[in-house]
């Protein structure tokens, strides 16, 4: 397929600015209001008055529209095609959900309203808590965390609160994390005040039980794990893992980033996990918005419910209300209820899928990942490290190490060459236990034709790598811009993080 992304030579808003242009105006206030305070800024104390307006650009409304529409044309999105970033679950985001949140009976709702005026939305969120509990095998949920990483932080803080409550926080200082874990896991553990102990994966790409056994001790606070793991492999010894950690007095935390593999098939709560966060912007189809907002509700087994972040939505049989009286709670993680609009979209998605649809989602997500593995593992230069012959779940990690050794074309080059063919690249160089890693998660959203387009692109890139390396190394050419100088961007002498900083450096 031929592909050419738009290449607008689009100046910054600041460079397009023309003195006097306006892009919006507000109505004048009424006479009475005007007369009550004719010179409004004169009421401000001198040391708080802004002497000159901020140096914002001046543009008309059509110019602003043009500018951003041009920018949008230089941005790939999942509505254009496969976006196979591993552990990111880039699936179809139903337009229906965007309409649902536009309802003024949601968009104008204020979180400081009395609960008696919010019964409709509180019922929705209460049901969402229950549905997430059912899907994950947990007993209770708090919807508050604003993203997956904040859900993780909340989860590890629950571990902390649990040990503090049992008088063990002084001694239980360690969180155990496999070497294949998402980077947010150790970062969240550290933010919650714990030391991180890394356990290696074994030759099958799973948690090394012997290493785990020697890692646990009376210092263990808990284990953070995702299942299937970042290699897309189901941790088959999960029962034993849970037993080892629980026996040592630790809790089991489930990183929900990889939940799309499990819907209707297997539940973290049944496998022995005590705490979970879910990424609604992954498994539950809310759009990622170029980096957020997401939502990372955190769920627990009943015994840990007292520690959930407040507020939790409760139902007394007649009324829905916000429970903020949880003395053992880890407290608040967000100013209000979290990313409420994202929660409503996820609710609509679950309702639209139903139990049958959720089950089919995981079936097709896993089917697609294995199809890609099967096809690509036969290509020269590529291998699928760890657990050969074992089915992957929602994602597969392949290695371009041989290709790199044979031709000099590395995982980055392959990624850039994919961009040139109108496909997004996989996650690269992660997990770090695989050299020249390409981590591919196709999701259920794409059918065989789009998967074949991806596989064909791979085949073509491999052929080029072995016959004409230069072509691959010069990619991308068909995107809005060629490869960017990342060193320059991060170098203290050339660093420009805003237009203001750039201009100051030019002086």
């Amino acid at each position: 397929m031929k592909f050419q992304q738009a290449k607008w030579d689009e100046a910054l808003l600041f460079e397009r600015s023309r003195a006097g242009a306006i892009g919006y105006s507000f109505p004048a206030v009424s006479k009475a209001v005007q007369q009550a305070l004719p010179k409004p800024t004169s009421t401000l104390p001198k040391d708080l008055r802004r002497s000159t307006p901020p140096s914002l650009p001046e543009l008309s409304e059509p110019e602003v529209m043009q500018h951003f529409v041009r920018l949008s044309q230089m941005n790939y999105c999942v509505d254009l095609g496969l976006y196979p970033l591993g552990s990111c679950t880039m699936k179809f985001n139903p337009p229906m959900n965007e309409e649902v949140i536009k309802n003024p009976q949601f968009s104008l709702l204020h979180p400081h309203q009395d609960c008696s005026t919010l019964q409709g939305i509180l019922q929705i969120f209460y049901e969402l808590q229950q549905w997430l509990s059912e899907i994950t095998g947990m007993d209770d949920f708090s919807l508050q965390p604003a993203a997956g990483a904040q859900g993780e932080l909340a989860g590890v803080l629950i571990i902390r609160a649990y040990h503090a409550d049992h008088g063990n926080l002084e001694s239980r200082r360690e969180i155990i994390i496999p070497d294949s874990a998402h980077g947010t896991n150790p970062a969240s553990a550290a933010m919650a005040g714990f030391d991180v102990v890394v356990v290696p994966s074994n030759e099958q790409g799973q948690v090394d039980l012997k290493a785990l056994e020697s890692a646990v001790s009376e210092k263990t606070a808990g284990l953070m794990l995702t299942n299937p793991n970042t290699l897309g492999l189901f941790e088959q010894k999960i029962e034993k893992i849970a037993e080892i950690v629980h026996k040592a007095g630790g809790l089991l935390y489930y990183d929900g980033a990889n939940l799309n593999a499990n819907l209707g098939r297997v539940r973290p709560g049944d496998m022995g996990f005590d705490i979970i966060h879910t990424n609604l912007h992954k498994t539950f189809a809310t759009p990622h918005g170029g980096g957020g907002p997401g939502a990372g509700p955190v769920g627990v087994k009943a015994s840990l419910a007292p520690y959930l972040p407040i507020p939790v939505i409760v139902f007394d049989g007649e009324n829905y209300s916000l429970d903020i009286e949880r003395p053992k709670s880890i407290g608040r993680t967000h100013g209000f209820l979290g990313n409420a609009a994202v929660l409503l979209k996820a609710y609509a998605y679950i309702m639209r899928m139903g139990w049958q649809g959720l089950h089919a989602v995981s079936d097709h997500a896993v089917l697609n990942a294995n199809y890609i593995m099967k096809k690509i593992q036969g290509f020269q230069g590529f291998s699928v490290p760890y657990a050969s012959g074992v089915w992957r779940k929602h994602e597969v990690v392949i290695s371009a190490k041989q290709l790199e050794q044979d031709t000099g074309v590395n995982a980055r080059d392959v990624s850039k060459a994919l961009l040139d063919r109108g496909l997004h690249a996989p996650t690269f160089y992660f997990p770090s236990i695989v050299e020249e890693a390409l981590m591919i998660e196709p999701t259920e959203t794409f059918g065989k034709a789009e998967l074949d387009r991806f596989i064909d692109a791979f085949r073509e890139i491999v052929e080029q790598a072995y016959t004409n390396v230069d072509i691959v190394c010069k990619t991308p050419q068909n995107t809005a811009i060629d490869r960017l100088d990342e060193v320059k961007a991060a170098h203290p002498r050339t660093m420009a993080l805003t237009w203001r900083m750039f201009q100051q450096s030019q002086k």
Partner: protein
Amino acid sequence: MTDFRHSFLPTVGEQETEILAALGIKSIDELFSDIPSKFQLKTRLKIPDSLSEIEVTRKIAEQLAQNWKSPKGEGFLGGGVWHHVIPETVKAIVNRTEFLTAYTPYQSEISQGMLQALFEYQSLIAELVELPVVNASMYDWASALGEAALMASRVTKRQKFLVPNLIAPNRRGVLNTYTNPAGMNIDSIGYDPVSGQLDLEQLKTLVDKDTAGVYFENPAYLGYLQSEVDAMAEITHDAGALLVVGIDPISLGIIRAPGNYGADIVIGEGQPLGSPINMGGPLLGIFASRDERKLIRQLPGRIIGLTTAQSSGQRGFVMTIQAREQHIRREKATSNICSNQALSAVTAAIYLALLGPSGLVQIGETILQLRHYAERQLNALEGVKAPIFKAPHFKEFVFQIKNPKHSNSAGLPIRTVLKSVQERGILAGIPLDQSFPDFGQSALVCVTEVHTQAAIDSLSKTLQQTMEGRQ
């Protein structure tokens, strides 16, 4: 299961058979055969049956109709998330699928649109706050405060952080959640009961060589402005601490930029810049700092930088100084944040591009006038005092209910008053009797450009009727 079809799922019939054949298996079940059988779910999830689109939208509309609906438009609730006008062009752009359904711009060459939009967001905020370094967003003001305290502690290697006594209880709650594990001490700065202004003499005694940062807000949670900002900066910097200032960006057309009076870190809530209230989320945490290496190295979150292309030399944008972040630095990262509020940041960028300097000045002045008018109308009512603080205000103020016959004692409970005003169609304010009992029977009222004179007159008239009806 086999005959279940869904419009979101393209793999059906022959296609599925072909893939199964390529894998050499007969059914999808085989792909899950490595899961220990005791964990394989034997029963269906207790989730309702799949519904069609129209059934879902109808059902949710019915559920949302259970919420109370004002016959009189937006109410007067603020307190951290506020009603503001949203230009249609903001909505049109931000709902474009190219922005909406993209991931974090890991592959910069194919994601220049989002990268440039985020760089422009950073650049526009930099002009508002007059600080040259801005990140690509935090979750909300509250978590930005938590991250700012942690950053101040890392930069100064000190553990004490001072905050005003009168800050939003939920914001203070999040601050505690973020800073407790790090062992930081959060101390409160007292205030003058008449003006609400921070007690500078007390601040001088509180600031010491263990103080990482001093935080205050402009406007404060209860709506008034904090002056003597230069003195605050001096006291803070003399002790080697960082000055952290919280702002409402929509005020910065007319209010002095914190970067201009010595703020080292500026945080705030970007929701007013084009995002709906949406029951309190998504919000937009603003985070800016001075251009100094020891600060930049400690920043939390994603940052977009300007650079050039390697071969064409063309200008472009990338995510940068990522060595601070969790995917590289893991447990040594400055923060665990990964997904942020990128689309809300783009929303703010579009909003600010439309308003420009004159729009931002106009909205600031309009808000000042409308709030002043509301304050005056309410204060004219018998038994109502507004505002309770003798200080300039921006868009919010506190009014207090007193029994006119017994002017020294508390009159009607504020919640009773607010409830009966609500029964007449208006959400008049946030009751403060529980969160700030020192101020008696009082409420926080927010007035913005969405409110007309008629709406304000209706508020004061309804409040008057309520008070009279009860007396």
